[in-house]
């Protein structure tokens, strides 16, 4: 027994004296950041409000599309374009929390698939059948959504008058924009309802109560894992797909400007910035946030890593901002700024996928298979 007591005392002493690396085990006067609270706050103050905004803005787009379909002219085209851009902001932010109902409802294939097939869209419009939301629901993912609307609502030279003229000449185009917008709004409403406001019994509550009762998450850590994986995947997509591919990194330096998502509307860089903002919101909360966040938890465990992530986020945002508009022109001219933005987002991806994931014990994109 004496040996056991000595061993216990030695271990407790070691525990009390530990410092530096492995600071997670270091006793501290600061109360531990509550992981359940992180999930509750992320769901209630970031994710649900984001989907509510998306739903609201897609409703606005549907309204603008109705006016456009009824009377296509420069004013209604411009109004619909502005409404479309307004939708892109919450949707691009939502890329940072693309899990739960977003997956089960296949929101991406309903609202924003990329790339779309312009041939199929033209064929859909040319079809003699009346265009309806019902028919849009039956279409493939690459024949509908926000990018299909972009194809019909914008012209590469930004000429709203030319777009209006095309809509006047071919009313089916306006009807398609309206049906696309109404279908996307329907799906966004379903998405918002599936998450549900706090106390509504939806996924927001399920995430906030991870590890308890009826939550879809068996453990709190499973919820943390989904949230961290969400921002990791968002950063990875930004680096590899949104920037790396158009720049031509996968083709040995041959730029692929057609791979720029949002190239026709010249909204690509705004989308990328919105996704970075979404990552920041999920990771750090908004500027007024005083509650538990992933960042505060990481800071408590390892301040250097926490500082590194924020520095990477800042650098990525600045690098994207430094790319001259439009992105497809920038990549076509082998812009160093675009390449810098790729490396900056890649650094962010690495920080989240390695430092943060390891520090929080999060398994990246792993199955529920047995361990050890």
């Amino acid at each position, binding site marked *: 027994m004496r040996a056991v007591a000595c061993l216990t005392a030695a271990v407790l002493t070691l525990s009390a004296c530990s410092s530096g690396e*492995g600071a997670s085990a270091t006793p501290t006067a600061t109360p531990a950041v509550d992981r359940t609270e992180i999930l509750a706050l992320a769901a209630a103050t970031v994710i649900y409000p984001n989907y509510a905004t998306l739903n609201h803005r897609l409703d606005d787009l549907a309204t603008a599309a109705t006016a456009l379909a009824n009377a296509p002219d420069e004013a209604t085209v411009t109004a619909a374009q502005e409404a479309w851009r307004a939708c892109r902001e919450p949707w691009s932010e939502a890329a940072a929390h693309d899990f739960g109902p977003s997956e089960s409802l296949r929101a991406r294939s309903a609202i924003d698939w990329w790339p779309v097939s312009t041939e199929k869209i033209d064929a859909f419009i040319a079809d003699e059948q009346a265009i309806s939301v019902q028919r849009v629901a039956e279409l493939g993912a690459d024949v509908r959504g926000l990018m299909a609307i972009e194809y019909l609502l914008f012209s590469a030279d930004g000429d709203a008058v030319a777009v209006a003229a095309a809509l006047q000449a071919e009313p089916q185009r306006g009807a398609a924009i309206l049906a696309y917008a109404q279908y996307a709004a329907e799906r966004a409403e379903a998405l918002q309802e599936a998450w549900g406001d706090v106390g509504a019994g939806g996924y927001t509550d399920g995430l906030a109560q991870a590890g308890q009762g009826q939550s879809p998450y068996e453990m709190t850590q499973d919820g943390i894992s989904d949230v961290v994986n969400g921002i990791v995947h968002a950063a990875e997509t930004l680096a590899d797909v949104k920037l790396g591919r158009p720049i031509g*990194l996968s083709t*040995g330096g041959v730029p692929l400007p057609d791979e720029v998502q949002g190239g026709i509307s010249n909204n690509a860089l705004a989308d990328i910035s919105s996704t970075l903002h979404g990552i920041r919101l999920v990771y750090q909360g908004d500027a007024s946030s005083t509650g538990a966040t992933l960042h505060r938890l990481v800071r408590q465990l390892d301040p250097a890593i926490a500082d590194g992530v924020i520095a990477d986020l800042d650098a990525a945002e600045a690098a994207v901002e430094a790319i001259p508009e439009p992105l497809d022109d920038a990549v076509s001219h082998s812009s160093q700024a675009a390449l810098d933005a790729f490396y900056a987002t890649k650094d962010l991806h690495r920080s989240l996928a*390695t430092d943060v994931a390891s520090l929080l014990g999060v398994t990246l*994109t792993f199955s529920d298979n047995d361990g050890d």
Partner: protein
Amino acid sequence: MTAIDRWRETLGQPVDGASLAAFRILFGLFAALGAARFLWNGWVEQLYLSPSFFFTYPGFSWAHPWPGWGMYAHFVALIVLGLMIAAGIYTRLATGLYFVAFTYVELLDQSNYLNHYYLISLLALVMTFMPLGRVFAVDGWRSSDPRQTVPIWCVWLIRFQLAAVYFFAGLGKVNADWLLRAQPLATWLPARGDVPVIGPLLTLPAAPWLMSWAGAAFDLFIPLFLLHRRTRFWAWLTAAAFHVITGNLFKIGLFPWIMIAFTLVFFEPDWPRTLMSRLMGRPQSVRTLGGGAEGSTCPGPVMSRVGLAALCLYAALQIATPLRHIAYPSQLLWSEEGFMFSWRVMLVEKAGQVDFWVHTEDGRRMLVPPRQYLSPHQLGAMSTQPELIQALAAHIAAEYQHLGDVRVTADAFVSLNGRPRRRLIEEDVDLASAPTGLGHRARILPLDDRQK
């Protein structure tokens, strides 16, 4: 009589086969349950049918998943074989086929490696050479052979195998991360504050330290206490409690329950009969070679020389294999050279991120994200293991062969046990042409290299 002869006689002595019969039944049931879980959870599709690329083991590149419904049929066969083993129907044949069928599945992809799968393969292998169909088995009821015994080497070989798992798991914990940084438990335990009752205790700063040291001591010494008659019962209860706790804290599948069940083999060979006697209130007799009670003076057969040699070779391999990492100059937890098949359980919290670059002879450089070749599960495994990174690099080189003689390099970063990420592999080394095999991979950077 030589020492070898004495060993052959000792190891050939018959003992009650009841404990190994119980072991066989539990093994068969877990084998069937494990295969059923694969079907139920969709892992057959996820792990064997969806991936287009597999990390085969060196020398086993011929192993490919069955096409179409073949893999489903294979897992149904594993269930049937497991149930046959449990029931003792054509026991030796079923066990042998199970060994082949299960090991084939494990050989398909290194990214699926788990220590307890390896343990199941080893146990199935050795069980194939044991007379396990005599007791509590359909084979025994059908047979005219009255023996209810097994040679004692059978019992000791299973005990040895399980003791090796614990001991080397404990030896693996004697490292600075585990003992002096309490990692990775310092990462894992605070995340389990939601566990009923003990959750708040897990978030205490001392919890990972106590559990690290206690865990290492448990693994190192539990075999001794299980082997000692006076401490056996309490040791088994302790082991059961340990496994129940770890099974609830971490997602480690059937492993804890398997070990609780299998360690019953450390009890006396007649423990099932003793238990039944107590439960049923009447003694259960054992028929031996002559049909009398156990302890009969009837001499048992001696073990053959070949058998003894095979047993010694097997034991030597089981001791040498987990220690082979000593031959590598790299840090084991970082490089994972000598990590597999060495019972290093629960030792690392790793996260990695890898990008590949293809370099053509004309100076072009192409980014190749590994996601396009791998399933999420494979991606997670590959991202932290140099051997798998090199295997994928070789595959990518083959895929880009149409561009001529290409080089493939990797930007590989790994965070180990709470450390900030570090580069794992030299960034300019052509991994596609780097030496493969069991030798040290010199291009693995040391853990203490602070380069980001």
